[in-house]
């Protein structure tokens, strides 16, 4: 039996993976099995198909259905040469430069096979956790230096300790999979490509803090991920990984998937909890922290999906092995997601410390269009635009903060020199206006005013005076907003103004996006 591997990740489906599978099924003949996997993260090569050979898996991509007859004639099934042949994926420069810890299995295993999961190191972390006991698990996560991968970078171990120490009849683990930042897809890739890793991480969290119920809050924009994760939950329950007696330990942990309804602000942890409770996704004032009074008023660990999915490997390999990677107070690895106008787009998991320039120029290969890079937006819609003159910034929480930026959830969107930064600043304000939960005036009203003021500047109407108004408005939003939606929208806006003043010179180029 010859085995072919074709991703079922939605990014592969979006560029025709199912049509390639159909062509292969019809033409490859008897004795060929097609395994559907997650994505390796080399998205620009999707659909990327692989064949199992004695030399390892050999990849070809990007493959269209029209390529299939030629590939088969050339000897695809034995890994033979062909213009689309990539070789072994792990030897590809894009993969060689990575440190795959959290994403070690993604794109390799059948995401819905627990046997595959076990064969590739799955459940080692949980097995250790059960033997260590709760306190040691919390200590291990703390020692690893893991910080929240959802944006704020708060130490995960400290959060867990707070919940572990809280006395309550019921506690919850909530996975924040409301990945709303443009340019990010790491959570989605795990949901689709290695769901048991998240489940294992959440079970470990539950054991560590004494929680017996978990929720994964995903998004309606991820229908494929939600379908496949639902299947993974069923399999996990059948296998006793979740349920009343986790792997025969006598401990119980239940897990449910919930799906949002198209509100960016529900990624903010307290708005997310409100949403889970069935309310409007309004941000809560802190304190109280969710660790004390969280879901349904109970102590709650709420972590980003990547934070939770990094826990199994931390326990399996040990805190020190994880903490040995990184720079300063940013320990371990980060799944950097390269998106937009880049030549090599996809997911690049690397130790902290790599510079932004290495990521853009070397890893991402510059722009897709071949034109010069003008700006990169890091950390989603609330993140700053960096010009090439700041590409020496190391990828590290503190280094980005020092330059008025954020790494956020690890997204990097590349723009070439055709981008008009006034239009980008306007969009940042517009997005804030659309997604504001409405609780604070600077965010709710200020964002709409921001759009108007930028329009005036772009039209050349009293440009200098209106620029002063914009700066003032950004200050008010920054300091007068309850959460980072209103508070950080000034970052993309002001970074565009600072680094690209020529795009705000009032020359009359309208930043207005047509067909509003």
């Amino acid at each position: 039996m010859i085995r072919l591997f074709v991703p079922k990740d939605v990014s592969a489906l979006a560029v025709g993976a199912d049509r390639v599978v159909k062509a292969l099924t019809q033409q490859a003949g008897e004795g060929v099995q097609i395994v559907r996997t997650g994505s390796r993260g080399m998205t620009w090569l999707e659909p990327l198909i692989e064949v199992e050979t004695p030399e390892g898996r050999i990849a070809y991509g990007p493959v269209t259905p029209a390529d299939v007859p030629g590939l088969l004639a050339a000897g695809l099934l034995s890994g033979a040469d062909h213009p689309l042949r990539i070789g072994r994926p792990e030897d590809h420069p894009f993969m060689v430069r990575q440190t795959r810890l959290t994403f070690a299995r993604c794109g390799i295993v059948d995401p819905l096979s627990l046997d595959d999961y076990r064969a590739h190191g799955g459940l080692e972390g949980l097995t250790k956790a059960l033997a260590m006991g709760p306190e040691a698990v919390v200590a291990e996560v703390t020692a690893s230096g893991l910080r929240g991968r959802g944006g704020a970078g708060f130490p995960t171990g400290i959060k867990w300790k707070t919940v572990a120490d809280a006395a309550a009849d019921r506690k919850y683990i909530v996975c924040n999979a409301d990945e709303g930042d443009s340019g990010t897809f790491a959570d989605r890739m795990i949901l689709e490509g290695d769901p048991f890793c998240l489940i294992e991480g959440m079970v470990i969290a539950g054991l560590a803090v004494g929680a017996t119920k978990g929720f994964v809050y995903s998004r309606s924009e991820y229908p494929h991920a939600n379908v496949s994760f639902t299947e993974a939950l069923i399999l996990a329950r059948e296998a006793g990984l979740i349920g009343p007696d986790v792997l025969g330990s006598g401990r119980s942990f239940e897990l449910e998937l919930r799906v949002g309804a198209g509100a960016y602000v529900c990624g903010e942890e307290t708005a997310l909890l409100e949403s889970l409770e069935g309310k409007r996704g309004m941000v809560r004032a802190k304190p109280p922290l969710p660790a004390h009074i969280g879901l349904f008023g109970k102590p709650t660990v709420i972590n980003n999906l990547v934070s939770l999915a990094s826990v199994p490997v931390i326990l399996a390999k040990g805190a020190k092995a994880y903490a040995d990677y990184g720079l300063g107070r940013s320990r371990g690895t980060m799944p950097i997601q390269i998106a937009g106008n880049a030549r090599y787009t996809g997911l690049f998991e690397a130790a902290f410390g790599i510079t932004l320039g290495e990521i853009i120029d070397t890893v991402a290969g510059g722009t897709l269009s071949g034109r010069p890079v003008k700006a990169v937006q890091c950390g989603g819609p609330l993140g700053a635009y960096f010009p090439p003159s700041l590409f020496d910034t190391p990828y590290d929480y503190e280094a980005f903060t020092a330059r008025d930026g954020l790494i956020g959830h690890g997204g990097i969107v590349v723009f070439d020199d055709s981008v008009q930064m006034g239009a980008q600043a306007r969009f940042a304000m517009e997005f804030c206006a659309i997604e504001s939960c409405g609780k604070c005036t600077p965010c709710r009203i200020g964002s709409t005013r921001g759009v108007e003021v930028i329009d005036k500047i772009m039209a050349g109407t009293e440009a200098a005076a209106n620029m002063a108004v914009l700066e003032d408005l950004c200050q008010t939003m920054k300091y007068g907003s309850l959460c980072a939606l209103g508070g950080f929208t000034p970052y993309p806006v002001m970074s565009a103004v600072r680094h690209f003043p020529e795009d705000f010179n009032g020359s009359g180029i309208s930043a207005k996006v047509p067909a509003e």
Partner: protein
Amino acid sequence: MASKTTNLVADWDPNRAAEIINAHLGLEGPALPILHGLQAAFGCVPSEAIPMVAKALNRSRAEIHGVVTFYHDFRDAPAGKTVVKLCRAEACQAVGGREAATFLLASLGIGWGETTPDGAITVEPIYCLGLCAAAPAALVNGEPHGRLDGMALIEAVAEATQS
């Protein structure tokens, strides 16, 4: 914004609505799962359902109405037969997403969130499908499409309307 169309996924049926509501009452925080269930069945959250949900959850009508209107997903009238969820966010903007969107909307003669007068096609803005490494991207009747330009987008929509 969204213009009214007549092609309900299912006609309003209070018994069906009651079934959907009851099926979720055992959940912790059942409101969103109920609203998703109603919209899956009826193509929208029918106004008739709101008092039923309120009663079942022991909350006020105003509160449930407030929940429904907070979330961008929930509609008060069904969408067109073909729904295009087109990403408007930055990663798609960086590779021609604005131009592709403008091309589609102009050729359909509608704006964001609107439905063609014949009820065939609705175009909704989406802020990120997680297809940012294969941008610009859209979901057309749930089918993912990446690396789009204006023409490819129109072809994808035409194919969906014909099937």
